[in-house]
């Protein structure tokens, strides 16, 4: 099962990113656990410098901008 983390301390774009990720998971039907990480210390430990950021299985896929739905689908689908 994929573990997807959405990093963001609570900005509007971070929430939107979480929604995009959840939708991508739902639409591809991939088994994945989506977690929103808003704790700053956790952000720092993960080495995130700019938010929003998304990591799939702890590999940071995007940082500093909102991903597109299609992008997220490609990340999660490739591992099937």
């Amino acid at each position, binding site marked *: 099962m994929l573990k997807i983390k959405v990093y963001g301390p609570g*900005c509007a774009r971070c929430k939107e990113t979480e929604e995009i990720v959840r939708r991508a998971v739902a639409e591809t039907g991939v088994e994945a656990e989506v977690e929103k990480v808003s704790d700053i210390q956790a*952000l*720092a430990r993960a080495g995130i*410098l*700019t938010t929003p950021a998304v990591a799939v299985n702890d590999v940071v896929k995007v*940082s500093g901008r909102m991903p597109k739905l299609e992008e997220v689908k490609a990340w999660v689908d490739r591992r099937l």
Partner: protein
Amino acid sequence: MGQTGTAGGTAAGVAAAEYRPHSDAVWRSLIAGAPLLAVWWLVYRQLAPLAAWVTYGLLSLRAGRLARSAEFFTFEAPKVLMLLVLVVFGVGVIRSFFTPEKTRRILAGRRESAGNLLAAGLGVVTPFCSCSAVPLFLGFVTSGVPLGVTFSFLISAPMVNEVALVLLFGLFGWKVAALYAGTGLIIAILAGWTIGRLRMERHVEEWVYSGLASDQTQPDVRMEWADRLRYGRRAVREVVGKVWPFVLAGIAVGAGIHGYVPEGFMASIMGKGAWWSVPLAVLIGIPMYSNAAGVIPVVQALLGKGAALGTVLAFMMSVIGLSLPETIILRKVLKPALIAAFVGIVGLGIVIVGYLFNLLL
């Protein structure tokens, strides 16, 4: 997993690197871009006569206050927007070469002075949003970027930005834009250096230095030229898409002032004669986070009514460089003493710049 090795990074890169790199995309962009640029230039050259034609021909206004305001708006609004699109695109392409990760690597372990200089310079070209100020601060100081050097970056990044520079260039000319950029960098360098000298590390929240250092660094994303152009286009969509209403509103208010506020009206309030005008302008400017884009045209119109340039520059710097929301966010990692030092030192620097220009010009 990770077969493409594109983990991380800002930018188009992530998605883009998954497309096959094709250099003919560059040629296609160039071939499409050159005529676009030529059209841009032709239109830009014709904006003044166009504005006059709209005002006196199309709207058939008689020369007077209303006509002065209308001509100002129909000239300045398209001019500033066209400049914005071009410059934001160019800066976007430049920024695709600089990620916060790369900047951090360059700055880590730097000594002060040279580090402050470098940090202020990198602050201009590294993509930065004040919403990421805290994670960026953490990432910098925990990986060995000195506190003062980090501050030089955090001061110059918002203050010397392309939108402010375009507006200053468009409405005041290149000299004022260059003065603003130059003095903004100097403030960032000196204020960061001063904070470093003051040894304020103990005024950073304790948990910051306690074993947060992350060994997770994000590898660089390989970007093709096509990706960089895409990055520039996205910058235009995001930045211009966000600021244009403020720019138009600002220019509209400015146009009103142009036509209707009497000459010399501002001389008594924001003129050179009033010594208190500079600190007052800075104080008013700090809590204002109105998109700077909307403030500059208003201020430009005031300048025409007798406000002094130094006062105006100080006002703009404090609006853009010291924002209340950013200091509130930074409170999560900085203790009040350091926040106060940061605001105080930068504010003082801005006041000095204001006085200096009122004296010199």
